């Protein structure tokens, strides 16, 4: 709350971005308290991590100070008040928090809790629901991320045309301490990402969180050693291809299950034993998620960080 209020009253955008990061981190621990570890992990990785970096990237392109708004504050305030009042009104008849008799615990959740072990065989129920019972929704989410990447690429990126960039990218490689620490940290971050990616069946985690962590490792490298060097490791063309490939892996699993006689994303037909089929299916779609998320995050980051250099070339 304190963070949220200070965000509203501040005018220095840099401080606001950092406060947003803190806000996300606090929310993440809040989610842990609510026993939603997967959500907490996502919030920490996306809210506190990547989005802070992206917002700072935007600030680097624009300006640090907020402009005076041209509208009066009355109408927005009214809308916000009415919305808030409606939300409070809605809480009046809500079932009590964590009451086991609540509809959400009574209707469809019991099957997820009691039978997902036999039907899917994955200890982490969140993964079962996410990747199998509601796998089609998750495919949709991946496509949303792909669409976002596509949007930024269209507006800022340089898909297809590649002007020669001669101006060196800004880097911090002259800082010895940063360099050494980064070199030590990056392999660990990637290893941790792999753990989150492939351990999502058993503990909290999965493709979304892992993808963000991978992207964070490469972005850290890019910030310290310059984007040019990072792009030598993973070029923009490769990133654009990976963006598409991730979605195709996910949807491709669905198409294969259709060919094997199941419904779209019905993993049971992937192996002789339905539970094994579910395992393969979940593993593959999580891989697809991870690939697209990593690629989109990197694509967005590079689109932002290259923007200034492209602009300066276009001006010449």
């Amino acid at each position: 709350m304190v963070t949220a209020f200070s965000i509203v009253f501040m005018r220095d955008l840099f401080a606001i971005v950092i406060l947003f990061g803190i806000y996300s981190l606090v929310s993440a621990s809040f989610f842990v308290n609510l026993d939603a570890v997967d959500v907490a992990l996502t919030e920490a990785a996306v809210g506190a991590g990547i989005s802070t970096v992206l917002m700072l990237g935007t600030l680097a392109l624009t300006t640090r100070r907020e402009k005076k708004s041209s509208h009066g504050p009355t109408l927005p305030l009214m809308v916000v008040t009415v919305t808030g009042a409606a939300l409070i009104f809605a809480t009046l008849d809500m079932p009590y928090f964590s009451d086991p008799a609540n509809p959400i615990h009574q209707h469809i959740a019991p099957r997820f809790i009691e039978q997902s072990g036999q039907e899917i065989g994955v200890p982490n129920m969140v993964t079962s629901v996410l990747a199998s019972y509601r796998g089609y929704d998750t495919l949709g989410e991946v496509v949303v991320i792909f669409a976002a990447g596509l949007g930024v690429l269209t507006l800022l990126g340089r898909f297809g045309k590649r002007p020669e960039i001669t101006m060196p990218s800004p880097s911090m490689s002259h800082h010895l301490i940063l360099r050494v620490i980064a070199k030590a940290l990056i392999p660990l971050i990637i290893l941790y990402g792999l753990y989150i990616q492939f351990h999502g069946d058993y503990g909290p985690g999965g493709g979304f969180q892992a993808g963000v962590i991978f992207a964070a490792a490469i972005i850290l490298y890019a910030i310290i050693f310059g984007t040019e060097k990072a792009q030598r490791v993973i070029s923009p063309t490769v990133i654009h291809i990976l963006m598409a490939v991730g979605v195709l892996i996910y949807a491709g699993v669905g198409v294969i299950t259709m060919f094997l006689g199941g419904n779209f994303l019905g993993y049971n037909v992937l192996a002789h034993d339905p539970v094994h089929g579910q395992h393969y299916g979940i593993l593959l779609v999580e891989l697809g998620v991870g690939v697209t998320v990593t690629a989109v995050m990197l694509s967005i980051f590079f689109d932002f960080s290259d923007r200034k250099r492209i602009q300066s070339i276009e001006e010449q």
Partner: protein
Amino acid sequence: MISHNLPALQIVLPLISAPLCLLLLRPKLVWIFTLVVCLATLGISVELLSLVINTGAISYEMGNWAPPWGIELRVDEISSFVLLIVSLIGAVVILYARKSVEREIPPHKHTLFYSAYLLCLAGLLGIVITGDAFNVFVFLEISSLSTYTLVALGNDRRALTAAFQYLIMGTLGATFILIGIGLMYMMTGTLNIQDLAGRIPEVLDTRTIRASFAFLTVGICLKLALFPLHLWLPNSYAYAPSAVSAFLSATATKVAIYVLLRFVFIIFGVTFAFEVMPMGTVLMLMSIPAILIGSTVAIFQQNIKRMLAYSSVAQIGYMILGISLASVTGLTSGILHLFNHALMKGGLFLALGGIAYHTGAARIEHFKGLGQTMPWTMAAIVVGGLSLIGVPLTVGFVSKWYLVLAALEQGYWPIAVVVLVGSLLAVIYMWKLVEAAYFNKVDKNEVVVREAPLQMLIPTWLLIAASLYFGIHTELTIDAAQKAAELLMEAGR
């Protein structure tokens, strides 16, 4: 295998093709690829419609999980009808898009354009076909994000501001919808629409469900641009690439209206929405100014794409007015107009794109003398305009006729007057174009304007001719709309 999986393929085909576009090595192939995909999608929706007519509603279990645990796709009389509209417009516009896109969008962005277009199509179809409330939100996001991209590709710099405005308003709408869905889930423990419809009556009398109803209605009305939540629409349509304006005006708001019908009539039911909650009054109070103000503002526009956008605000008013009457005839008129307006407005925006092809924009001064230089395009605009006004033998007449009937049925004669005044205002703004095109001489120093390329004229006339055909042979559409209306009225009694 194919026929069993048709409902899934309807979405998956365009959804998979969008990333495939990025992998195609030759940009020239992308258009052909997109065209083939859109035609196949159209084929699937035709097949689905005939299946539904012959054998009744189809339910498809995603991932072989039975609803409400898994996600269900549901093709019934209403959704198959809307699927056909969306995929039909999608195919016609893409046929048209090649020439128009070549002129309006820089070459290195063509691949991205077609990819975003396919995503948008898949998103809209996904919203229509799904039987799951949360899935509606997911596909709404897919279609919205790709729409913002498409709008921002317009060659006017103001397209960026328009897209940003749309993004903010659209995200607000989506958040409201999400809050509404979340509250419903909290009270019922399910997300499946059929299941929700069964479980919601028990908890209907709680404040939480009322709030959720309010959030959903406001959120969806933002998406469908009901007055006074329409502010994002005029700029987006005016500055988007021509093909995008046509596609959006004919599909996006229509799909939002479909979502409104689905949620209000099937989940909450007519009795709750219109007798317990004052839905009818509220919608009526919004749609009457939508018709009158939208049409009046349209008269004063110099940019003709903007003029048609304001006219869309008015036409959405007619649809909502029909729905607000909450009777079979009223709903029939709303659903009919949904289809009819897609044909005429789609055709009109395509025709404007033909004019912009040579003149670079479509402002009123560009219309001078077009009656001679672009006879076919102008004829299309005149016929489309007559339909907007609601002249007999056009589709516009049929739906307005039903609207007036529905109003008189309940003794609301002032509504009939509103419809009449709206039509008169439409006469004024369409007359401006006719006057400029047929009664003004061409400026000598202007660039030479020729007829639009055939590849753009044919799709334009396809839609315009359809709007004439369905204006004369009315049985088919009226039957479909009436059946859908009866289904909706019975659903939540």
